[in-house]
């Protein structure tokens, strides 16, 4: 009915302008989590279903997943925090930007977000990538010695696995995952 009143009083055009002006003012930098990060969260969860660590590397049957760098996930990862892998319970830790190797000692899995691109070498050189499962959401990562690289292609999030490193690592990666991650 309001539309009718507006229409009758010939205010449509003015109302449009007011609306746009009003919207410009009202726009705030708050926005929901990018669905890409929901997909990436789901990838992390899926990868962990296919990787098994030597028991002694996991404390209290817990696999510690460290998110290194700026957290673009919002609270999306809450959904996998406490979820199970065939072997253990997932525990998510946010370590913030890389400052030194000390803060990463408890990690079984490292996920490097875009903000860490310039720290890649420093991180990989100071860690044993045969013991820690490393994932980055940017390239180059595998060529620098990382395990999994997520990338976007043709409107889809895809991944590559470092097969050479997978052969040498202490954890076991199921052949299904390796096959899907050729490239």
């Amino acid at each position: 009915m309001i539309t009718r009143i507006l229409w009758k009083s010939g205010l449509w055009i003015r109302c449009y302008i007011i609306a746009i002006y009003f919207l410009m003012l009202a726009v705030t930098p708050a926005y929901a989590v990018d669905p890409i990060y929901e997909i990436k969260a789901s990838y992390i969860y899926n990868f962990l279903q296919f990787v098994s660590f030597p028991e002694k590397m996991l404390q209290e049957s817990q696999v510690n997943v460290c998110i290194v760098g700026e957290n673009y996930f919002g609270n999306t990862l809450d959904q996998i925090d406490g979820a199970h892998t065939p072997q253990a319970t997932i525990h998510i830790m946010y370590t913030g930007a890389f400052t030194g190797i000390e803060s990463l000692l408890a990690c079984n899995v490292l996920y490097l977000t875009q903000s860490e691109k310039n720290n890649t070498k420093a991180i990989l050189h100071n860690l044993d990538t045969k013991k820690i499962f490393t994932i980055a959401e940017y390239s180059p990562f595998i060529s620098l010695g990382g395990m999994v690289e997520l990338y976007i292609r043709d409107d889809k999030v895809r991944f590559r696995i470092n097969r050479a490193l997978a052969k040498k690592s202490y954890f076991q990666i199921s052949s299904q995952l390796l096959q899907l991650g050729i490239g």
Partner: protein
Amino acid sequence: MKRSPLVLCVLFFTSLASADPSPTINITGTSLNELMNLKITSLSRKEENLNQAAAAAYVLTGNEIKRMGVFQLAEALRYVPGVEVALTANNKWAISIRGFNGTASNKVLAMIDGRNIYSTFYGGVVWQEQDILIDDIDRIEIIRGPGGTVWGANAVNGVINIITKSAKYTQGAFVGGGVGTANNLVRARVGGKFGENTYSRAYIKISHQDPSSSTPYNDSSQMAQSGFRIDHYSSYGDITLSGDVYQGGIGSKLQGLAIQSPNAQAYDGHNLLFNWIYNSNSQRTHKILAYTDYAAINADGILFDHRTTNNIDYQVVQRFNPQEVTYGLGYRRVNDDIPVIAPYSFVPQQKVDRTYSTFIQDNIGFRNDTIHFIVGTKYEHNDYTGSEWQPSVRGSYAFDNSLLWGAWSRAVRVPTRLEEDLYVPPLFVGNRQLASEVANVTEIGWRKTWQQGVQFDATAYTSQYSHLVTIESNTDKNKMYGHVNGVELSPSFQIKPSWVIRFNYSFAVANIGVAENSIAKPQANEIEKTLPKNMSQIVSMWDVNDRWQLNTFVRYVGSVPAQHVASYVVADASVGFKQTKAVHWQVVARNLGQKHYEWGGLEAPKVGPSVALYVKVKL
């Protein structure tokens, strides 16, 4: 400015609506195979900042469609920029993109899960018989502009791709109903799981639409549809099997297929579809789509069309950085039988048409994927016009959260059974020598996303047509040509995570002419004057809190002189209320504003306000 109108405006726009804050995918319940095939664009309107699509693509999500509270598919398309939707009779629709609208809008291709629903009998989609369960829709992808290179013939002005949810995401059961001043509806769905990786669902939907009071006919309509879907996920890929059966009609009491009321219709049909997507490794995806579809229409008790389509497509996506090559093969066979009451007839009455096709498209990325170059062509051989090539060249450049793209494409519309084989001597004899209608379309577009949740999407196009079909003194010929030029804009504002507002605006002008020896000048004029120059929409979706939703939709459609339709502005609004986790209510008010016609002719109803109340109970 006086205070009162300002306050009204502010109240109105604050009362408007938004993005669902709940996750768009099931994070712990989506397999790797699914993740690898999940299109980012189909997940949300945030697509543009990463969407590489060098085309005017628009996605209506299932969530948005639910918010609209629509009874039927056709109504959901009213709020897509550049799409013309008009109610030509009670529950009969004319839907087109970039002009040439009509009860046979023969330049837009539509598909449900890849199943072609374009009728090769008359050219167009019988929208009222596509009465799928709205709750099952995952998304509708609307591509304005040609899609012939991938989808083949008749995707001249656009493609409407309706995609339903995997049965994995429709687990549990619900019953629902709707009572309205013009329609009633009951629907139910049940979902199940077999073993580890197999999911299923079945649904039924029965709807009734009261006769419109403004036409001299009894044009009430009823429809019943039921169907199922099974999805299986394994290391052999994702397999889908689905099917539907339906029966319905418009007009006075339908007794079997014998109907009396003028302009009445009865229809029934069924379909079965099999789809298999398999990643042999991360660089190669195979897809097989096979379906059979039977559709029958009884129009006025005079014309009967029985049509069986059998189709198989095989497609491979092969990636080798920085290229991605997609290629495929397809075969379609249509058997029809068109008995007609004298003096009309179709010669031959029964026919088998075969179409063989193959296509290849290469997407090459340069400079870290910021520049894309996409070239491809489809080759099709059909029984009407023989060989048809439908090439396209697209390019895009991504910078600063923007994408600039351009495309040139050629697309064709193949003549229909009606145009070739209608036989009413001496008045009219169809023309077997008709050529395909051809369009050469050039488009440019720009999309940008700003940090503050503001997006802008703009497209400009020029479509050059030749060999358009005309009706001459006693047959049809390819004697019309012309062009349509237009602009489409859609800015969108994510005001809060729970509130989105979108504006759509489109402008188009058609200029159509005929050959000197043609008598079809009035037909050309009609095409020019059936295209509304300006169309605009405002969509606001707002989650007020966890329980309440308020969605407002306003549309303006410019005048359509050929149909004696004056311009109009109307609004739709819906209020959603989650009483408990299991019980959801929705009140939908539709066509608020002045009563108006959307189409000409005696059949066209005057569209006025209606209200409906829906309830959905999860069991």
